[in-house]
């Protein structure tokens, strides 16, 4: 366990430095790129806020949708990420096969995918989230 500041607090400190000091000191393309950098750090900060919780929710949603046991998500973060990736691949293959063209699987898939993209958007661009 590391000492304070936490990783998120450090990220936020760098983001504020970029936004308050660096952007003001630059102009032209460098100023624009400093803004991009501050925005990227904000994305990473939001992602770290509850990455595990969101991955567990996505894992459960995908396992349910694909008719797999949905009560014991992997406990390690890396395994959880790999499992979500594998099930997303499996879902894509089923959509390409046409399985999601008709009811009732279509509605179930759309509901699950809508939830996943909304969660991604809340991290990547909360201002656009509607």
């Amino acid at each position, binding site marked *: 366990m590391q000492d304070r500041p936490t990783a998120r607090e450090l990220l936020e400190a760098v983001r504020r430095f970029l936004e308050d000091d660096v952007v003001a000191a630059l102009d*032209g*393309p460098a100023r*624009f*790129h400093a803004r*991009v*950098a501050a*925005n*990227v750090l904000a*994305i990473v900060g939001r992602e770290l806020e509850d990455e595990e919780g969101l991955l567990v929710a996505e894992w459960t949603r995908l396992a349910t949708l694909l008719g797999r046991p949905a009560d014991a998500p992997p406990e390690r973060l890396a395994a959880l990420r790999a499992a979500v*990736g594998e099930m*997303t*691949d499996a*879902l*894509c293959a089923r*959509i*390409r096969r*046409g399985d*999601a*063209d008709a009811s009732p699987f279509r509605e179930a*898939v*759309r509901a*699950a*995918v*809508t939830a*996943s*993209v*909304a969660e*991604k*958007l809340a991290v*990547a*661009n909360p201002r*656009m989230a509607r």
Partner: protein
Amino acid sequence: MTALAEQLAGWIVRATGESTARVSALRPLAGGASRESWAFDLVHGDGRVDHLVLRRDPAGRTIQGSRRQEFLILRAAAAAGVPVPAVRFCEDDASILGSPFFVMEFVAGETLARRLLRDAEYAPARAALPEQLAAALARIHGMESRDPTLAFLTVPPAGTAPAAAELARWEDIYRAATPDPHPAIELALRWLAPRVPAVAQQRIVHGDFRIGNVIFGPEGLRAVIDWELPHVGDPMEDIGWLCVRSWRFGASAPVGGLCERERFFAAYERAGGVRVDPAAVRWWEVLGNFKWATICIMQARSVLDGVVKSLELASLGRRVVEMEVELMALTED
């Protein structure tokens, strides 16, 4: 004087035979990640000054068509009455300035979409642009596609709808580029495939007609720029692309953040455009979102693969979700 200004001045003197011409005030123009634009003044012996723009590929790279092609399409567009910067010179020999280039007249004005859509100064432009963009697009679609100087334009394979050809092309690009699976994009592809619009008349399309690719002043449209992706295809493609949510830059009106679809369709038809098929426009808007998602994936991928070093391009990978959300909303039916 910089080496570039000297080389450019030497070339212009040789090309025009005007031995007293000078190049001054050469400066890079912002914008355009893929190619370089420079503004400069061409000062004649008698003191007259032409304000010009040099466009060239980054040294050693030729991308998205040649500068010669951009020069030719700009010339043809001007002849058809489309507001564009007038072109002056073109050179294919990469040894002159390090890569092929062309020169056009400088059009003063603004290109930043957010200024257009928010600043009080541009309120008259916001009011005028729907009709002006519609008229410009109608003229583009009225250009002669059999013009022999435009023989480089790609044409859909015989017997194939332009929409079917574009869908197949972008699906291939997407599958080759994406490092992650995207169920929202797979659903959009299943929506697009059975709804491919047929097209009666194939026209010249701009290929990147949107806010951000026009120069405007407080009074309205001054020039349509960024002619890097023209081709022969379905004219509805340009209208659908103009409606893609990202090109509203946070404003709410569907056509470039400027107006409702109906107003734009009517103005385009009045200006002599092709009869608008709203269902086809919708299809191209969905394809446009898929295309823009794919471009963001490709740009981010080029950073992940170490081809380029750019935080801006890397960050586009996290914009893909914006188009996924939009695709889910557009394909509910």
